[in-house]
């Protein structure tokens, strides 16, 4: 039987079974079992209340959202021009830009993070260069603090934004921009009135996917952050590994998962618009 005639669900079945077996079932079991451990609904609610309004969790939630927001904005600001260049580049230039963006992803996260640590440390490359040129007299604290976390996460998340924006920008008909110019628009007007609105759905999708990924980060803040840069995923890990308070971990997981799913619902609406929205 030709492959094309197989029903879609049959083609998806292996992946689906794997996901159910190694992700959905364990996480479901973990959540249900951990929370049931607490006893009656009243007792569960008491624990939820205690966990969510504890100083540690509230602090981690604030950190997580704040870092996620800053990183998402930085990624957008850096990624937008890069995506534009990528969407207009041809041939060798296109391949080069794309390689620069995607190649780091063939390296493991840990290795990449350690590479940043080499660059950002007190005696790292960046501080040595800045000291050498006399731009600063004291080494900058770029690592084991919020700055380090933001730099590391911005770097890791940039490609998601770039590739999402690229898809939106590539779909823009360049003749519309020329037409706008011909009708008297200045370059700034061409951008604000034509290009920006036509790529807005890409910006929204890129912001959502970046934020979704950012709030679940673990390795980068753990390695590059300081003691005050606890994000929610790190707290969950700590509850599981150190204090072995599984119910608390489960409650936090539910919170993170809910936020992620809501944002993902929004994301899939806007990324769907990538294919259908901008065209007649």
């Amino acid at each position, binding site marked *: 039987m030709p492959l094309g005639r197989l029903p879609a669900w049959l083609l998806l079945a292996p992946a689906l079974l794997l996901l159910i077996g190694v992700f959905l079932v364990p996480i479901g079991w973990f959540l249900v079992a951990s929370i049931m451990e607490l006893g009656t609904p009243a007792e569960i609610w008491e624990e939820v209340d205690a966990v969510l309004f504890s100083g540690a969790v509230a602090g981690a939630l604030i950190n997580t959202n704040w870092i996620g927001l800053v990183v998402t904005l930085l990624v957008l600001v850096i990624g937008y021009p890069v995506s534009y260049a990528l969407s207009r580049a041809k041939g060798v230039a296109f391949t080069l830009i794309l390689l620069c963006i995607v190649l780091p992803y063939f390296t493991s996260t840990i290795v990449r993070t350690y590479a940043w640590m080499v660059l950002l440390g007190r005696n790292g490359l960046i501080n040595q260069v800045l000291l050498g040129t006399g731009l600063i007299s004291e080494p900058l604290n770029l690592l084991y603090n919020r700055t380090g976390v933001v730099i590391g996460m911005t770097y890791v998340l940039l490609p998601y934004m770039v590739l999402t924006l690229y898809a939106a920008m590539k779909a823009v*008909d360049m*003749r*519309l921009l*020329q*037409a*706008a*110019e*011909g*009708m*008297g*628009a*200045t370059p700034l*007007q061409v951008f604000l*009135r*034509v290009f920006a*609105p*036509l790529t807005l759905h890409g910006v929204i999708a890129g912001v959502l996917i970046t934020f979704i990924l950012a709030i679940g980060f673990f390795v980068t803040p753990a390695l590059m952050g300081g003691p005050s840069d606890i994000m929610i995923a790190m707290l969950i890990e700590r509850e599981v590994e150190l204090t072995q308070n599984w119910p608390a971990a489960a409650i936090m997981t539910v919170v993170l998962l809910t936020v992620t799913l809501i944002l993902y619902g929004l994301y899939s609406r806007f990324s769907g618009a990538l294919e259908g929205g*901008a*065209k*007649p």
Partner: protein
Amino acid sequence: MSDGSVALEGVTKRYGSETVVAGISLAIPAGEFFTLLGPSGSGKTTTLSMLAGFVMADEGRVLMGGRDMTRVPPRGRGLGMVFQNYAIFPHLTVAENVAFPLSVKGTSKSEIAARVAEALAMVKLTGFETRYQRQLSGGQQQRVALARAIVAHPRVVLMDEPLGALDKNLRYHMQVEIKDIQRRLGMTVIYVTHDQEEALTMSDRIAIMERGRIAQMGPPREVYEKPQSSFVASFLGEANLLRVRRDGPAVRGPGGSVLVAAEGGLSAAEGLAFVRPEKVRVESGRAEPAPNRLTGKVLHASFLGNIVRYEIDAGDGATLLCDAANAAGVEPHRPGDIVTMIWRPEDSRFLAA
């Protein structure tokens, strides 16, 4: 923009080693409907792009209303434009699309509203203000593009194959409307097309382009009836081009027949005699020995409704197309019939081979 006249002086554009437009000069008076006609790759779109300011000329000058606009960007030229693909902004409504040329200049809201209403009324799209591109038919999109081109009352409007995507009926309809709007507003229109029929119907003057040069320029009737080259003759409609050679004072065509033409002497020893199919009269029987009379055998007779088109073998490998009106009481010739083809010297020209 003052009076709407446009001129090109020795304008040249090269891409690498390829010369796309080779030293074009033309002068278009205000209010003229001027068409650049040519096959694809003839340089007509590049010429229009240089008029629009999207492409900068390598040599020569672009003048508008007597002012040198060669280096002025598009927004400084104050032109109206209709683009080949319409270029309707998909994120804006019809009214916002039409308002675009005004709103980028900071025109007041009340004036924009009045002008947009006026432009939409002119293209008969009143009531479509809040629609988006995806809710419009091809013809309606074309009208939006037209309204947007005229909304700022430009003296000059450039149109790049604006009707290319429309079906034949709608095309004809829009041709009439564009022509009508052009006359009412008294604007200069520079129109690019590869459709010779469209060029003949609409234009005051046509420039026929061939490989980056103007092959011939003039009113439709003149370029159609008095082509100066075989390229122009065969690009505009059907043309018979018969091989001829000089024989003493006479010029001889197929079967040694003597051909005469009122204009365009034969400069070389060999050349072509041009005559349009509808200028050839077809009669039964062999030709008497006289100039511009050829004997031939009917190969095909195609009934096209108002005309009958004959394909006639004149000997020596020459085949002529002859169109006869399907007039009252005319009995058509049949394939195999021996016929005489006759035309007047003033309907014929000798051209370089």
